[in-house]
């Protein structure tokens, strides 16, 4: 099995897309970024549905696109399994005929059996004769996956595979998809605007912003060591802006940042000048206003509760420093501290959990 090698440049309206990526066989790279970052364009270029202005795309030894040589292999000869965002199932064909569409190598008489077998693998064998319009979002996604994998593709391309699902079916679909991606032996390139999804499904995450890959690595590394305020924000951290204050005698190994709008934050990261400071919500604790100082957490900032939003078994607390900050606490803590909008509190977190990136 051979990997994908992508290096493309293309103009897309006002956006200048310039992306280089290697996707080894059997691995899944999640291309993550906000909408309009050019993620889908990369997928379309790999599949051959869009011709980039310049660059190279190859799968193993086989060249699919070469701007210099003017080579562009037709999509039907690249054989990429493409999962479209809204699945793009053929509405005039039943589920099994959708799957059988790509089974041209299989003798006509065996196509139905083979298609149903594939549908069964995704737990939707019983829906073989149904038209897409009568299927739920989750069912459609499985039929579309079966269809994309039917012709034994050389690469798997997934465009926002979970975006069209409702919150309830998304969790289950995500788990199934991550299991599938482990099994698949071809290179897989997945596109998502959701960092959590990228972290769950990708062996590696590449963050795309403004047409360029700004950072790539495994999700934990990106989350712990964001290369920029954008990446920090994207990974779900709260991002504050401020300026590094020159060190005062006795302060070693710690950077002090004066936040825009008031307050000081300490970080173990080095930095200078205007910076973005990021901290993940689960690193931030909330204490009653006026509580005694102490403990190892060196960031203690007065804040006011702005909002409360339950997320699973936790509650996301929106705070104003006055810059916005998010803390994640248990429901029990919300009751014990009587948290409600307008309540003054102290936000507490460690200098070691504070990331500083140039701005």
């Amino acid at each position, binding site marked *: 099995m051979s990997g994908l090698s992508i290096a493309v440049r293309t103009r897309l309206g006002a956006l200048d897309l310039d992306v280089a990526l290697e996707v080894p066989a059997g691995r899944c790279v999640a291309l993550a970024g906000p909408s309009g970052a050019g993620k889908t364009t990369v997928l379309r270029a790999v599949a051959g549905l869009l011709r980039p202005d310049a660059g190279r795309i190859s799968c193993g030894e086989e060249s699919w696109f070469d701007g210099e040589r003017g080579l562009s292999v*037709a*999509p*039907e000869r690249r054989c990429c399994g493409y999962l*479209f965002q809204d699945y793009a199932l*053929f509405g*005039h064909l039943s589920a099994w005929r959708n799957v059988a569409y790509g089974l041209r190598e299989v003798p006509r008489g065996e196509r139905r059996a083979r298609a149903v077998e594939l549908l069964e693998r995704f737990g939707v064998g019983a829906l073989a004769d149904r038209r897409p319009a009568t299927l739920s979002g989750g069912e459609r996604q499985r039929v579309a996956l079966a269809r994309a994998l*039917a012709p034994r593709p050389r690469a798997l391309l997934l465009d926002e595979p979970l975006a069209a699902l409702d919150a309830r079916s998304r969790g289950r679909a995500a788990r199934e998809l991550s299991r599938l991606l482990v099994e698949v032996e071809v290179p897989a390139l997945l596109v998502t605007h959701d960092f959590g999804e990228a972290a769950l499904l990708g062996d590696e995450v590449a963050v795309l912003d403004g047409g360029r890959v700004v950072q790539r690595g495994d999700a934990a590394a990106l989350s712990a060591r964001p290369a920029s305020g954008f990446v920090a924000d994207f990974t779900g951290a709260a991002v504050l802006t401020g300026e590094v204050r020159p060190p005062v005698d006795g302060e070693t190994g710690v950077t002090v940042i004066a936040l825009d709008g008031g307050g000081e934050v300490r970080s173990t990261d080095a930095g200078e000048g205007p910076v973005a400071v990021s901290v993940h919500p689960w690193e931030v604790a909330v204490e009653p206003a006026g509580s005694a100082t102490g403990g190892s957490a060196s960031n203690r900032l007065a804040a006011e509760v702005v909002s409360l939003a339950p997320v699973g078994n936790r509650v996301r607390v929106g705070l104003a420093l006055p810059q916005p900050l998010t803390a994640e606490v248990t429901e029990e803590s919300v009751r014990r501290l009587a948290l409600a909008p307008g309540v003054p509190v102290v936000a507490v977190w460690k200098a070691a959990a504070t990331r500083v990136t140039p701005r």
Partner: protein
Amino acid sequence: MAERLRGAWFGALLVAALAVALTFLVLPVLAIFLDTGPGQLLDSLGDPSSRDALKLSLLTTTIAMAVVVAVGTPTAYLLATRRFRGRELVVTLLELPLVLPPAVAGIGLLAALGPQGILGGLLDDLGIRLVLETAGVVVALVFVAAPFLLRAAQSAFEAVDPRWLEASRTLGAGEARTFARVAVPAALPGLLAGLALAWGRALGEFGATLMFAGSFRGITQTVPLAIYDRFATDFDGALALSAVLVAVSAALLLSVKLLASDALR
């Protein structure tokens, strides 16, 4: 309250408009059947010249529709799926026959394909004669009816989700296979609706046929021409033949609609 009254007033206006439209459009059609007894209808069908006209109409419109579908469907697909410079101009040129008076269409066809026309010499060299021949009727029908199919087919293809066409390509189907297996089946209801419109227009064609092909019984005299031929001398006969034409057209429209709803299921 005032809000509701205003709504009621507008609703009544809409219903009144529908009533007027329905009466005006249906009455003449109804009158044809009310004035024609079943006996007259059968007599008219028994008349050899009527049967010749009916046979000729069915034959020429069928051939014309085959030509229109074979050339018009790929043309409409191209216009619906490709963007190129001058596309709007091409679309407008293809729609032009829609607004052309039939007499002008006839003159135009004579000027282009008649013995003294631009291509007349070429056709003559090839041994093809159109004027005053059955083939000429087919040419006139194609000319006036094709734009109806083109328009409907183009919007039908434009309504097909472009992702479907792309999905087909990534699943290993080339452009031709994608056209045949995805685009045409997905657009079928719209294509059939276009075919019904074009066929209806062809069945009723009068002016261009008369000017380009003439009105010779058994050769170029289609049902509308036969009706006109009798109108002065035998009004009842003309009426009966009209009833036959309406019945055939309605049956055609209905069967195509049934086919389309079948394709949707």
